[in-house]
C-alpha cells in the first residue's frame, strides 16, 4: 500500500499497529465471518464486508440502485451501513486518508473501487491531503504571506479566461483557487505568479470534458459529485506541477527564465528578420513578457488553448526552447504590418493582436513555421550566437 506522504506520524503508527492486529485476527478466524454486529469498532466492519462479499450475489443490482438514488436502500443493513461509511468518507470535500484506508483495508464496494484505488495509490490522495493541510484551514493558521497570496489568488480567479462564462461557475472558481493556492504552498521557490491561473484552464477543460458533454458554453457542474470534482482538481494540480517543473525559473524572483527567453527571442528575430523590426524601436520585453509568462494562451482565442497544450505537452522538456520559436513565428506573422508602425503603435498593436477571428489555419501556420525554424536553427547553433 502506498503511503502517499504526510499524515500524523503517531496516528500512523497506531493505525499500522491496528492493521497488524486485524491481520492476525483475520488469519486466526479465517475468511468466513458471521456478518453481523454493527458496532463502531473497525473489527466489526471488516466482518461486514466479507459477509457482504460472499452473500451479496449481484453487485450490479446494488449499482443500479445506487445510480438511481445516490444512496443505498434495500441492500442488507450491514452493507448499507458500510457503504454509507464509504459514501460519507468519499463525499467529504477533502477525503481523510486514514479513515479511507481503515475502511478500504477490508474491502471496498465494487462500484467505488476505481476511485478508492486511485485515491489509495495515486497522486490524487496526496493532493487531497495537501488541500486539507494547507487550504481547508482557518486564516488564523496561515502566516501573513499566505494570507496575502490567498487574497491575490482570490482576485485573479474571477479574471481567469473571463470571456468563457463557464469559468465563472462558483465551483470552478473554488477549484481554481484551491489548485493555485496548493500549488503556491508546494512550490515556495516561485510561489503563485499572476498568469499561472491562465495555465490551469486547459487542464480543467480537458479533465472536465471526461464528465461533461457538448460545448463548454452548455456545461453545468450540477451533476458532478464532490469526488469527481476532487479528482479533477487533483489531476489539474499534478499536471500543472509537472508541466511547470521544467520552467521553474520562469516564475521565481525577477523571472530569469522569461528574461532569458525574451533576450533570445530578440536574437532569433534579428537573424530571421534581418533587424528590420528592431530598427523600429521595438522593445521585446514590452510584449513578449506576457507571451512567455502565459505561454501565448492570452494571445489566441480560448478554444485554441487545448491545441496549444497538445503541442506543448508533446514537446516535453524541450518546451522552453520551442516556445522561443513559436514566439518568433507568432511575432513575424505581423512583420509587414509592424514595419508601418511607430514605436508606440507597435507596442499597442502587439498587446492587442487581431487574433479574435483566427481559424485553425492561422495557428497551424504559426506552429509549423516555428517547427521549421526550430529544426533549421537547432542543427546549426551558430545561427543563434552573435
Amino acid at each position: 500500500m502506498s503511503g502517499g506522504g504526510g499524515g500524523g506520524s503517531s496516528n500512523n503508527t497506531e493505525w499500522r499497529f491496528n492493521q497488524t492486529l486485524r491481520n492476525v485476527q483475520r488469519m486466526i478466524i479465517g475468511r468466513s465471518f458471521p456478518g453481523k454486529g454493527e458496532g463502531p469498532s473497525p473489527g466489526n466492519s471488516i466482518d461486514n464486508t466479507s459477509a457482504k462479499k460472499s452473500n451479496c450475489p449481484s453487485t450490479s443490482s446494488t449499482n443500479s440502485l445506487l445510480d438511481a438514488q445516490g444512496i443505498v436502500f434495500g441492500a442488507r443493513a450491514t452493507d448499507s451501513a458500510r457503504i454509507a461509511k464509504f459514501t460519507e468518507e468519499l463525499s467529504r470535500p477533502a477525503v481523510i486518508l486514514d479513515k479511507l484506508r481503515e475502511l478500504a483495508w477490508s474491502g471496498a464496494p465494487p462500484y467505488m473501487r476505481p476511485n478508492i484505488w486511485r485515491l489509495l495509490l495515486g497522486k490524487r490522495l496526496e493532493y487531497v491531503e495537501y488541500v486539507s493541510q494547507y487550504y481547508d484551514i482557518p486564516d488564523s493558521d496561515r502566516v501573513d504571506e499566505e494570507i496575502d497570496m490567498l487574497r491575490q489568488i482570490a482576485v485573479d480567479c474571477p479574471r481567469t479566461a473571463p470571456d468563457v462564462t463557464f469559468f465563472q461557475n462558483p465551483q470552478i472558481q473554488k477549484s481554481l483557487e484551491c489548485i493555485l493556492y496548493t500549488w503556491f504552498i508546494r512550490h515556495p521557490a516561485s510561489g503563485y505568479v499572476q498568469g499561472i491561473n491562465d495555465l490551469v484552464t486547459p487542464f480543467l477543460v480537458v479533465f472536465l470534458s471526461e464528465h461533461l458533454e457538448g460545448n463548454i458554453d452548455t456545461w453545468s457542474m450540477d451533476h458532478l459529485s464532490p469526488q469527481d470534482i476532487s479528482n479533477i482538481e487533483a489531476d489539474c494540480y499534478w499536471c500543472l506541477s509537472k508541466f511547470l517543473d521544467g520552467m521553474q525559473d520562469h516564475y521565481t524572483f525577477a523571472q530569469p527564465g522569461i528574461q532569458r527567453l525574451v533576450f533570445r527571442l530578440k536574437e532569433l528575430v534579428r537573424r530571421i528578420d534581418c533587424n528590420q523590426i528592431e530598427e523600429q524601436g521595438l522593445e521585446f520585453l514590452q510584449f513578449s513578457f506576457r507571451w512567455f509568462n502565459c505561454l501565448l494562451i492570452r494571445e489566441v482565442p480560448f478554444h485554441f488553448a487545448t491545441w496549444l497544450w497538445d503541442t506543448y505537452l508533446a514537446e516535453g522538456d524541450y518546451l522552453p526552447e520551442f516556445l522561443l520559436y513559436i514566439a518568433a513565428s507568432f511575432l513575424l506573422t505581423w512583420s509587414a504590418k509592424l514595419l508601418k508602425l511607430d514605436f508606440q503603435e507597435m507596442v499597442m498593436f502587439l498587446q492587442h493582436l487581431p487574433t479574435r477571428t483566427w481559424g485553425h489555419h492561422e495557428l497551424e501556420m504559426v506552429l509549423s513555421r516555428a517547427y521549421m525554424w526550430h529544426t533549421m536553427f537547432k542543427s546549426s547553433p551558430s545561427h543563434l550566437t552573435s
Partner: protein
Amino acid sequence: MAHRVDNEYDYLFKIVLIGDSGVGKSNILSRFTRNEFCLESKSTIGVEFATRTLQIEGKTIKAQIWDTAGQERYRAITSAYYRGAVGALLVYDITKKQTFENIQRWLRELRDHADSNIVIMMVGNKSDLNHLRSVPEEDGQALAEKEGLSFLETSALEALNVEKAFQTILADIHQIISKKALAAQEAAGSGPPGQGTTINVADSSANTKKGCCSS
C-alpha cells in the same frame, strides 16, 4: 528605444499607473484613453501601455501611460518602467482596505525606483461601490495631505473623475516643468519667454529626453 519625432504635441509625459492587484488600474487606463470599461478584464502581466493626447493650459500634451501588474512578484519588471516617468497615479480600491493600507509600500517603491521629482496622485477607485466602501473618503484625503499628494476618488465604471484625475496630474506636471524652464531661463540671463517662444527644458530631470518641447 527610438521615438519617431512627432511634432503634433508640445510635451510627452510618461505616467505610471501603480497599486495593488484588482484595484482597477487597467480600467482607469482604458476609460481615459479609449473611453471603455471592461467588466471581463484580465490581470495585467508585466506592463501595458496606451497614450492619449490632450490640451492643458493651451499646450498639447501627449500622455504616455504605463499600466503595471499589481502583484509584488512583478515589481522587478515593472519598477524598470518608473524610470523617466514624470507622474504616477497610485490607485487603491475604496472597498478593499488592504489596498489602501499598502499605499505606503507603493510610495516606498516610488521613492526607491522613480525620479525624486515625480508627481504623485493618489486615486481611490470604485466609488460606484459606495455601499461596499471600507475606506472613508476622509481617510484617503488625510493620507494624501500627510504625504503631500493630490487625491481624488474615481469610478472607472461610471467614468467619474477619471478624466479629472489625469487632467490634474498632467496640469501639475506641466506647471512644475514650466516653472523649471522659467527658472532655467532666468538663470541663463534671458527674460521670461513670451507666448510661443521655445522653452528648453532639456536640463529638467523631471522630463529627460521625453519631455522635450517644440512650438
